[in-house]
Structures are given as structure tokens and as C-alpha cells.
């Protein structure tokens, strides 16, 4: 068991965002978190990462209370891909990706070839070599998202958390990202990904956690737990679940 979230609750002032969220994540799982805007997906991520402090419950990692780890120890085990955002200073794409190696680098003034290579590899995996010498600031939102994913890859952790990684990507790159996530799974790594596309969850994930009305309402294989009833509960009556060419798909309801 890699990650265990136990009865976690979080509130801003007195407004609860979610409560009683419990789940565990094992090695080699590709798990999605689904929920409407404001359902607390990002907040849950931030609690897991330790950016926000949960008001109740506990999080443990590899059997140990997560708060007991040092920040640098966690960074060796968990990588985090934030939502796309601009930065103040014009770091080059190459430098941004190299920053993913920070916890592994022993001498910042004499960074060994190995780290540069890991960063190059991550860039190649996302076909970003052409952008390596461009400032991160000058990229489009989608390109920035790809760079942040490359940085997380370069970090080489056992668990990766991605906050809506495909939200501003074109279809080709969306498929590329899912391909990479499936690859990570094959290597025995775990991935927890927040997404807004129920079809991606149906197609690519082994497991889904559904957050609705401040609680976890479903946890299991997408094909089993994403029933028409559950989908309508979260997305309303305008969607329907159909099977096309033996693949389940969430589609808009006719009329």
C-alpha cells in the first residue's frame, strides 16, 4: 500500500470542502478523481501534497504518517503536476525540467551529466526537444502543461499526482499524456490524476474516485462504478452512458 488517506476532511473557514474521504492507493495503479468544478479535487491534492493542512483525518505514505517525512524525502517519492500557470522569471524549458531533479542533485554548482540526461529524456518523452531553449513564459498554456509533466517525469518518483493535466492540450497531446501515464503504470508506478473528462477515465484508468457533495460517493473500476445513475447524479440529466463498439462512452442525451 503506497498511499492511505483516512477520513480526511478540509474546510475553508467554516465552509467544509470535503469530509470523511478515505481511500488507499497501491503500486501500479492508475486512478482518476472525478468531480464537478469546486468539488474539492484540487484541494484534496493540496492536502495530500501538504500545501494545505487537513482539518481532520490522516494521510500516510508507505505505512508512515506523511507529516513525519521531510519535504525533501517526499519530493523523492511524490511528484506533483500543478495546473498550468505563468511564472515571473523567464526560465528556459530546459531549466524548468532540470528543476525536477533538485532533490537528486548533490552539488548545484556542478550538476552531473546524469541529471541533464534525465531532463533531456523527459523532454524527449513529451516531444518537447524543439522547445528546450525557449523561455517557459513564452509558451502556450498547453505547452506549459507539457513542460510541467516533463518536470514531474524527470523527478522519477513512485507516485505522481496530476491536476487536470490534459485540460488545455490538443487531442494528440491528450493521447500522448495518457500513453505516458499508462507507461508509468506498467513500470509499477502509481498515478493519481484529476480530470474533467469521464471518457478518459473510462478508457484509460483502472480505478476512479468520485467526489460529489463534499463526499466520496464511488471508488472502484470505472466500468463498474460509473453507472448512468452516478453520472447523472454528478453531471445532471443532460448526459447518458452508451456502449459504442464495445467501449463505454458518456454522451450528451438526445432531446
Amino acid at each position: 500500500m503506497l498511499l492511505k488517506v483516512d477520513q480526511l476532511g478540509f474546510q475553508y473557514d467554516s465552509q467544509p470542502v470535503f469530509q470523511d474521504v478515505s481511500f488507499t492507493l497501491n503500486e501500479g495503479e492508475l486512478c482518476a478523481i472525478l468531480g464537478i468544478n469546486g468539488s474539492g479535487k484540487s484541494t484534496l491534492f493540496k492536502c495530500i501534497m501538504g500545501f494545505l493542512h487537513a482539518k481532520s483525518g490522516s494521510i500516510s505514505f508507505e505505512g508512515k504518517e506523511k507529516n513525519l517525512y521531510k519535504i525533501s524525502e517526499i519530493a523523492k517519492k511524490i511528484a506533483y503536476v500543478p495546473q498550468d500557470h505563468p511564472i515571473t522569471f523567464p526560465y528556459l524549458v530546459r531549466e524548468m525540467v532540470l528543476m525536477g531533479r533538485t532533490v537528486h542533485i548533490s552539488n548545484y554548482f556542478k550538476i552531473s551529466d546524469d541529471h541533464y540526461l534525465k531532463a533531456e529524456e523527459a523532454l524527449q518523452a513529451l516531444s518537447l526537444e524543439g522547445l528546450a531553449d525557449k523561455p517557459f513564459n513564452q509558451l502556450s498554456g498547453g505547452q506549459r502543461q507539457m513542460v510541467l509533466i516533463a518536470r514531474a517525469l524527470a523527478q522519477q518518483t513512485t507516485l505522481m499526482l496530476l491536476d487536470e493535466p490534459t485540460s488545455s492540450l490538443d487531442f494528440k497531446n491528450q493521447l500522448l499524456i495518457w500513453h505516458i501515464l499508462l507507461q508509468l503504470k506498467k513500470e509499477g508506478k502509481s498515478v493519481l490524476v484529476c480530470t474533467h473528462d469521464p471518457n478518459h477515465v473510462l478508457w484509460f484508468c483502472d480505478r476512479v474516485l468520485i467526489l460529489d457533495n463534499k463526499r466520496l460517493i464511488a471508488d472502484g473500476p470505472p466500468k463498474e462504478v460509473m453507472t448512468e445513475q452516478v453520472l447523472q447524479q454528478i453531471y445532471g440529466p443532460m448526459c447518458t452512458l452508451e456502449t459504442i463498439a464495445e467501449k463505454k462512452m458518456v454522451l450528451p442525451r438526445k432531446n
Partner: protein
Amino acid sequence: MLKVIAPKKNNKRKKLLLFLLVLMVVLTSLISLSIGPYDLSVREVFQAIFQIKSQQFSDFEREKLARLIVWEIRMPRIILAALVGTALSISGNIFQSCFRNPLVEPYILGVSSGAAFGASMAIVFPAIFYSIPISAFLFAGLTVLLTLSLGVIRGQIQTLSLILAGVVIGSFFSSLVSILKYISNDSALREIVFWLLGGFYHSGWNEIYLLAPIIIPVSGFVWFLAWKLNIISIGDEEAKSLGVDPKKNKVILILCATVLTSLSVAYVGIIAWVGLMVPHAARMIIGPDNRFVIPLSALIGTLFLLFCDTLARNIVTGEIPIGILTSILGAPYLIYLLRTKIV
């Protein structure tokens, strides 16, 4: 097989640039040593520095004088300018990176107003506040502590509230300075005004013995943290996820910046603009990586203050406070930045 060529080649170029700047600093210092009310040739400067005796007997007096001017008057001034230029530029860079705002300057937390108040108190009440630099330094430290205590909310450093607290505390101390100006007599008022504009008039070896053992190691330590400063400058949450504790490192770095700024201000007064524009210029030349920005800022800061100070003591018969020159040269630069490069 992948090869690492581009980033390494890039780093080599940057190192070469730093080396060239070091040469420029040496050259400018030599020129600055030779220019002054008593003109010396570069050759005489050399002879004075390396204590070479000339052959002709007749030059003995002039040689003695040259040695005195070079070693006791101009050299300490140049070294002090270099120390202060380094300190202000590096601390400006720290604040800009920590606050993720390229328009922040080292006086943002109220250091300058606190120091100004301390210095003015020492000028108006010399009997109570024994020394101007000590009083300026103590009040500079005090203002930063006040600002920090207002800006840290629930154990978190809130950038916006910190900057606002700096503005509030700063203007409070500025008004106290105004009161002191109002009640002081003519000579004290003149001294306060001169102090506020900054200058290297009181440079001597004693100041250097005091400042160098603090400014040099603190600057070195900040350079040592350069990579972490890079990570912090992209955001707290990301720093944390990449394994760098943003809170701990920011506190350490801001303390270093405060020591650097308040010490400089205490001895040479408020020299404006350096801490704002030098890190900016450095980043435009060498990119945002602080492993290079920090040494380059130190070199550009040194060059800029050397240049301004040489001007300050040569363009009129008396001496212009250097703060005036740095502002005159700095303002157009900021306008240029605002028109072209604003991030």
C-alpha cells in the same frame, strides 16, 4: 544516445562573461584610482599599488603623495563602493526572487526609512545616539522586524501583506524623519539631507574592516543557496513539491538580505535604484538562473557604483551625493523597462 551539449556550452559562455566582467571591474577601479582632484597617471597608480620605487630621486615627494592618495583615500572608497554595490544588488535580487516580483527593491521592507530615522536621531541628538551608523543599523533592523511581524500571518509569509506592511512601516518612519527635520537646526538639517542622499564621503579602512567580514561571507552564503532561490522564485507550492522548504529558505534569505541592506545603508546612506535595476539588468544579460545572476549582479552593482562614485567626486569641485546620480541614471532605465520588458 543522448548527449548533453547545449546546456553545458551555455554555462561555459556564462562563465566567460563573468570573467570578462571581473576584468572590467579591475580596469574601472584602476581608472577610478587615477581620476580625481589630484590627477595621477595609470603608471603612478601602479607604482603606488605595488609600492615600486621609481628611479628618479626628484619624484620621491610626488610618489609619497600618490601612495597616500591611492591607499588612504581612493582605494578604500573603491572597495567600499564594491562592497555596497554587491550587497544592495544581491539583496535586491533576493527580494525580487522571494516575492516573485521584479519591481521589488531592497528597501521594500522599510529598511531605508528605519535607517534614515536612526541616522537622523543620531544627527539631531548626538549625545544620546552615539554613532550614526550604529543607530541607523539598529533602527533598520527594528523596522524589518516590525514589518515581518505584521506580514507573517498564521505562520505563513504572505507576500502581499508583507509588502503592504513594509509600505506602512516605511511611511511611518519617514514621517518621523520629517518631524526630526522640522525641529532640527540648519546644520543638522543639512547633514540629514546629505545622509539621505547617500555617499561614500566617509570611506576609510575602518569601515571596510567592519563591512567586509560580514558582506563577503553573507553574499557567498546567498550564492550557495542560488539554486534553491531559483526554485522558490517559481512558487511556494512548486518549491515544496520539488523538495525545497519555501518558508525556511525564505526566512533565511530575507534575513541575509536585511543584514546586507541595513549594513550598507548604515554606512553610506540611502543609495536608490541599485538594488532594483542591477538584478534586472543581470537577468536580461544572463537569464534568470540565480547561480549566474548573483555573481553577475554583484559585478554589475560594483561597476555601477564605481562609475557613479567616480562621477560624483569629479564632475563638480565639491561632491554630489551619489544617490542623486543613481536616481538620475536609474529612472530612465526603469521607464525603459516599463515600456519594453514588463513581465
